């Protein structure tokens, strides 16, 4: 298999989808002509390949971008729109939360909104809290939206393909730091189903559930703990909604211990949902309290030493696991 950067794997999904289905179009700020002329960026070269009819540079208008997707998908197109940085999804949130998520329900199931929102996320590049803020739990909280969060190039491609051809609105979170990571990616229309977690590393003593870049922190923690004779199982959720609850509960059933990890704030973060599921449905398996590893309850700081302090790392996971062994 070929090794591709995540950014290029995402472009492969976009290209394939556009080739396969005339209804697919791409829109957003700078998805055609971009200040980034880096060939690793996902939308690089799409304009040249598909032209202005199908690759639409929009004004700086997040509400209009999201509304465009809702209206066009209702008419039978398959929009793939981009929100430049995760925090700016708040400007699109009326269209996404009150409309994309609810209009099927409001129509009594008569209407459909098969749209995809690609949103660029991440921290670690000192952009400050108006550019860095992981809001996946907000999106997951709105019934009617699906949410994916890939950690590998293959998953980024496969999940995006599933999202584009899924009949519901899907928020596809792309962690920008991972654009530049390489990995094996299958050729062609190989999809990763929504709602199917992946066991990244099998283990016996505790389960770590993560998604996105946090998966790599979990793997690093597993290496460290292995030297101490502790065996960690690492699960990558890949999709938050629909959630692969069975995979989490099955693993917990074997290990008896659960640690959740994400870069978003801890309070009301996605880890809280996982912990609640463990308490409600996996209580009999629990040999120790659930631990949540997440960012502190502050906005993302700008200055490098604070940004590093803020982002949960392998050491935080190691300590959390040790505290429940």
């Amino acid at each position, binding site marked *: 298999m070929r090794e591709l950067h995540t950014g290029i794997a995402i472009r492969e999904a976009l290209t394939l989808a556009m080739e396969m289905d005339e209804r697919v179009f791409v829109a957003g700020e*700078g998805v055609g002509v971009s200040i980034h002329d880096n060939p690793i960026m996902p939308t690089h070269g799409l304009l040249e390949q598909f032209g202005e009819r199908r690759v639409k540079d929009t*004004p*700086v*208008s997040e509400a*209009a971008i999201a509304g465009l997707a809702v209206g066009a998908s209702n008419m039978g197109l398959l929009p793939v729109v981009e929100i430049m940085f995760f925090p700016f999804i708040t400007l699109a949130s009326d269209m996404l939360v009150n409309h994309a998520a609810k209009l099927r329900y409001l129509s009594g199931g008569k209407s459909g909104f098969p749209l995809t929102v690609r949103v660029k996320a991440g921290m670690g590049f*000192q952009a*400050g809290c108006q550019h860095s803020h992981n809001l996946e739990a907000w999106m997951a909280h709105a019934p009617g939206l699906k949410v994916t969060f890939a950690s590998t190039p293959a998953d980024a491609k496969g999940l995006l393909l599933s999202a584009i051809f899924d009949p519901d609105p899907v928020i596809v979170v792309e962690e920008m730091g991972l654009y530049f990571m390489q990995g094996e990616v299958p050729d062609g229309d190989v999809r990763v189903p929504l709602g199917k977690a992946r066991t990244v590393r099998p283990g016996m003593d505790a389960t770590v559930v993560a998604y996105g870049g946090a998966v790599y922190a979990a793997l690093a923690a597993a290496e460290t703990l292995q030297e101490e004779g502790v065996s960690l199982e690492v699960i990558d959720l890949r999709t938050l909604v629909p959630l692969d609850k069975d995979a989490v509960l099955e693993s917990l059933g074997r290990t008896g211990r659960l640690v959740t990890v994400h870069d978003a704030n801890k309070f009301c973060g996605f880890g809280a949902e996982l912990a609640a599921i463990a308490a409600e449905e996996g209580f009999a398996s629990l040999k120790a309290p659930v631990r949540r590893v997440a960012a*502190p309850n502050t906005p993302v700081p*700008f*200055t490098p030493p604070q940004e590093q302090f803020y982002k949960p790392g392998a050491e935080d996971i190691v300590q959390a696991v040790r505290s429940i062994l």
Partner: protein
Amino acid sequence: MGTGNEAAVRLKMLNKMILVRRFENQITELAAEQGRLPGMQILATGQEAAVGVVLALRTEDVIVTNHRSHAHLLAKGADPRALMAEIMGKETGVNHGKSGTLHLIVPEVNALMTSTVVGASPPLAAGAAFAQQYTGSDAITAVFFGDGAAAEGSVHEAMNLAGVWKLPLLFVCENNCWAGAQSFDVHCSTGNIASRAVSYGMPGELVNGNDTDEVYETASRLSARCREGGGPALMELATYRMRGHGEYDRQHYVDPAEIEEWAARDPILLYRERLIEAGVATAEQIDAMDEEAGRIVAEALRFAEDSPYPAPEAALDHVWAEAGAKIY
């Protein structure tokens, strides 16, 4: 146009513009040296005549700005040392390293709020102007935003509210021909922003944004009108972004001839020549001014580099007011 301004104001404007250029050139230099500056660096090089808006305001007047803020802040009197330190993420920075270059907030000089969320500044400014109206103050607010921002719904909503409530708010659109990699004509259907003022019942004026006197005179006139209860006004500065969206932007999508053409209209060069011709200053005086600005910037850099980073754990500070603090 422009000859009516007093010599002292004109000299002060040139002085501020020169300081801004020196300050930003220093950032360009640092940004080019990998690792010396964290984050992205967004400059207003070529747009310095906007200082004319700030100098048309009074000390008690408020400004609200955006990601391209250095000229506005330095003109309003922000300390170059604390600005440089903030840009470097240091404890001595205006915002203790929490903001960095994108959200510089300097309330002590009434540079009240900054948002890097494009289009967010005008509604914030409407709130500030409302407070001024509410308390019976005769201070006003000026808000800076880009031509790209004018596409955001929030900007229309702020203009409408300011129009119906007659808020003392001067909308200042710096049209630098680009929004990211999108040229003005591909994101705006009407050819200018100023004409939108009609829809909100306020005056709208399009000025040469590289002519400092014209900027100053228009801002003086429109802000006087706001101050006297005439309601909001909109001015659009036709200008140009000389250094790309940010320092990482190689402007591969821009015709170099366009940049050259605007370089010939450099607001600082034009103003320098005009002031010499008008006998307001000699070339020697202006050169001395430039050297002094260089010293100020060098000192700011030294101060910033000598300052420590804030403690990592201080990442947790400033989310809430002090424990136990009460409004009353």
